């Protein structure tokens, strides 16, 4: 997949094994199918911006990209700290890229400490190329210099291909404060390394700094050009990743921005939220733009208030969204139950993070599926959707709003920290008026009509909205009859529960069977949900190329589950889910069939379809890597 062509010796004595696609000598570019590159620094040094710009440039060139933010848990971690790595990781491919991929091939690091965090986290490929800021070697602080030299030597010894780069010294020749411009110098280097068009890069820099004055743009462009020149002359390798030319405009945003754009496009007017990582950036963006289309982002006093506020606004006729993450989602449970009981349309976005409790706020996990299906006390049926891609994040909000208002239900969108902080291009959507919420129905309610006149076969009823003459009634969280009168009659209670449950079945009748990736029969079917789709399909694709009879199926609707799942599973000898939530490991001494806890989706599939669905999971707080899934599937195929 990758190749390295050292034309001259790096400071490391042992360049990695390489397979050259282009001729040696001079500086011919080695052609690669794909490469994973990271730019990491202390936070505030601009590595994020460098990485995002690189992604955009590659995308404009027609390459597939997947960028992932590398975020330290603290706002200002101490400089040069192992846990403080901040930056961006970009997987650049010749074709479309659907996930972050495996380990990193090339890193630019602004100091050796942030790099150590990545090394210890096993994020770098063996023999990975490291371009390391060399200013620390001559630091006046003897401790710093010693640490740098020690780390450098150990990296070289470990087989990494380390190039020391005088980033700061080079930048100082062109600007007075190199700390502000190093990232653009690095961007220039990367453009040279990956043979990206310098003119496209210049344009991207101008776009990135569009709001700033001309001088700032010019200075950054200059640094970009100097970085490019330096790498052309100073590095002994160069790559080229051929691009498939795009013919369609693409949108490049992360999952949270896509969610916010979806809220905009759905015609919703109010978003009520309370700050929580990793969901907040959706609200940040929405706060910036919602008012332009007459919307309001209300930052409530707490998560419960945010949900109650959203319910109030929805009840009054404007379907509303509340955006949160795990702990906030837990706090909202009672209010969600109220919306279920009152049959008030509501969209709840849960950008999942590691849990339980405060867990891992900035890390990815798929741990909230069961709490979403079964959360809130009593029987509280709600629709549960999980976007599988960044593009899905956008469209799922539009769909969720529609379902919420058609079925008078709560719709929960389960995104996660992985989607929230990753970017990959998707076709620019074509606006459709049908996306928008219709104007509030203020027509008169016919005499005798009841607010919960549940249709006996679908459970559906006309939605009564304040302002409708003749529709006056009191919504209540208490058990109620079809007139919304509080009722303790046993038959009435059951009638209400039945109607609210039937609505899920009614929705299920409108869903299509999930498509299969691969053949419709074989030895093993992998089932997944949410952000793992790209990874699973890449892994399954690779194994299919080797001749294995493995396919995959990805569920967008977790509740109700679409038809056709059982039939699809029955055509495979084995079925296994791949998930980002815990399942007990069968190899653990005291784990057996009688006590093993299955992953969430596996548990649901087993319960619903009576099929012996196995599961494999990983909860390391990192996006699951395709190679790891390949290994897991291979193991499953063998026994």
């Amino acid at each position, binding site marked *: 997949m990758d190749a390295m062509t050292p034309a001259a010796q790096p400071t490391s004595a042992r360049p990695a094994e390489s397979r050259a696609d282009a001729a040696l000598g001079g500086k011919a570019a080695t052609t690669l199918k794909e490469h994973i590159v990271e730019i990491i620094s202390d936070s505030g040094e601009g590595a994020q911006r460098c990485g995002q710009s690189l992604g955009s440039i590659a995308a404009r060139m*027609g390459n597939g990209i997947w960028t992932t933010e590398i975020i330290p848990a603290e706002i200002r971690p101490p400089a040069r700290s192992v846990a403080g790595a901040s930056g961006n990781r970009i997987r650049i491919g010749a074709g479309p890229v659907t996930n972050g991929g495996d380990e990193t091939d090339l890193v630019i690091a602004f100091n050796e400490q942030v790099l150590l965090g990545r090394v210890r986290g096993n994020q770098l490929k063996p023999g990975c190329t490291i371009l390391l800021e060399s200013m620390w070697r001559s630091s006046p602080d003897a401790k710093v210099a010693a640490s740098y030299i020690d780390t450098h030597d150990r990296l070289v010894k470990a087989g990494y291909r380390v190039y020391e780069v005088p980033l700061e010294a080079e930048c100082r020749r062109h600007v007075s404060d190199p700390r502000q411009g190093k990232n653009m110098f690095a961007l220039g280097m990367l453009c040279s390394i990956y043979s990206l068009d310098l003119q496209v890069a210049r344009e991207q820099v101008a776009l990135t700094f569009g709001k700033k004055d001309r001088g700032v743009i010019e200075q950054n462009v200059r640094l970009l050009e100097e970085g490019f020149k330096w790498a052309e002359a100073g590095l002994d390798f160069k790559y080229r990743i051929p691009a498939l030319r795009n013919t369609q*405009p*693409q949108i490049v945003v992360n999952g949270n*921005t896509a969610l916010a754009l979806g809220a905009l496009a759905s*015609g919703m007017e109010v978003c009520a939220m309370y700050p929580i990582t990793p969901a907040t950036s959706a609200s940040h963006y929405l706060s910036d733009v919602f008012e332009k289309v007459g919307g309001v982002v209300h930052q409530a006093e707490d998560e419960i*208030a945010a949900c109650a506020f959203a319910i109030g606004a929805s009840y009054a006729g404007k379907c509303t969204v509340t955006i949160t993450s795990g702990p906030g989602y837990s706090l909202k449970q009672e209010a969600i139950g109220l919306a279920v009981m009152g049959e008030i349309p509501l969209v709840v976005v849960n950008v999942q993070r590691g849990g339980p409790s405060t867990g891992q706020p900035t890390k990815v996990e798929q741990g909230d599926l069961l709490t979403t299906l079964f959360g809130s006390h009593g029987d509280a049926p709600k629709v549960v959707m999980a976007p599988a891609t960044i593009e899905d994040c956008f469209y799922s909000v539009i769909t969720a709003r529609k379902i919420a208002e058609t079925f008078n239900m709560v719709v929960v969108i389960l995104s996660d920290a992985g989607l929230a902080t990753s970017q990959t291009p998707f076709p620019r959507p074509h606006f459709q008026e049908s996306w928008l919420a219709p104007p509030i129905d203020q027509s008169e309610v016919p005499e005798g009509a009841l607010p919960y006149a549940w249709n006996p076969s679908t459970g559906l009823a006309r939605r009564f909205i*304040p302002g409708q003459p003749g529709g006056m009634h009191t919504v209540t969280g208490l058990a109620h009859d079809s007139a919304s009168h509080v009722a303790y009659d046993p038959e009435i209670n059951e009638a209400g529960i039945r109607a609210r449950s039937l609505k899920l079945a009614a929705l299920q009748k409108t869903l299509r069977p999930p498509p299969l990736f691969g053949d419709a029969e074989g030895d093993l079917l992998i089932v997944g949900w949410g952000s793992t789709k790209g990874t699973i399909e890449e892994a399954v694709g690779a194994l299919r190329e080797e001749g294995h009879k493995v396919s995959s199926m990805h569920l967008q609707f977790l509740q109700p589950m679409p038809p056709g799942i059982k039939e699809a599973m029955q055509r495979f000898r084995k079925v296994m889910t791949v998930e980002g939530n815990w399942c007990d490991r069968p190899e653990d001494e005291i784990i057996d069939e009688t006590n093993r806890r299955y992953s969430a989706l596996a548990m649901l599939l087993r319960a619903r379809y009576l099929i012996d669905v196995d599961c494999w999971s990983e909860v390391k707080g990192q996006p699951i890597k395709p190679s790891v899934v390949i290994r897991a599937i291979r193991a499953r195929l063998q026994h």
Partner: protein
Amino acid sequence: MNMAATECLLQLYEERLQLEDYQSGVPRWCSGCGDNAILAAVQRLCRDEGLRPEQTVFVSGIGCSSRFPHYMKTYGFHGIHGRALPIAEGVKMARPDLTVFVNTGDGDCCSIGAAHWIHALRYNMNITLFLHDNQIYGLTKKQVSPTSPIGTRSNTTPRGAYLEALNPLTVTLGVQNVSFVAQAVDWIPELLYDIVKAAYHHKGLSFVRIVQRCPEWLPKLMDPWMHDPQKVQLVHHERALRISPAIAKVYKNHVEHDPLNMDRAREIASSTDVVPVGILYQNPCVPCYEDIRRSGGLRSADYVRRGLEGEFDKFTVWPEGAGEQQAA
């Protein structure tokens, strides 16, 4: 549906709503419960103000008082414990055209919903709030509430409440952006009505604490104040509450108080020997959150489309060679 504008006006003019038009069901409160008096005053207000039932929403939490919306023939929202205020705020934000009331009890507002109480004052949305304060948990059968006087014997404080009671008036008067604070008692219906009416007419969050008797759990609690008219202090002002001669004859303890005088309001609110009745604070100049936040523009599909396309433009990567002219 096609009706000339003048016909429309004529119809409105001719439609006079009666008390029955606001009454729904038979209240299930105990006889002698102060909630009945509050209901009567509010229904009278609706009739006198000619509030359209379909344009009026009563939002409540959980507790005896929160059954209130069920007895109004308007739109109602009987929510969950403590959360009446944020629900009402959502209603008002989405629909500033609706008239919104909140009925909440001392447990609902001052205990489980205390955070929302503080912040609702700060938002100052145009909502009228009635705090039905009977100083005890009624529906769950006699537990101590934050406003129960120290020593109150309840099922959770069989040897008497341990803590000093929280004073909802002084707490409310301590919050930034507070714009209307009044106190009424259920046993003087005329003043209760006048205060409810003043609260309704105030633009902003009108906070009315209504001292309300609970004949079931604390039947004698208010006796000292009821039996001695001197212990009811009427707070009046020409720009606030005016007292009728009939009332003035019975209740002789009067104090004139300018409702813009916050320091004096806090002083009056702090009295323990007398129960002040009247408007303690009113500032019509505090802006309402919904007015600050809402643009009021017409949200047509085209308006949303233009906004959205503008955002898409920011994030669009045009195919190489398509050129910048496309982006512009």
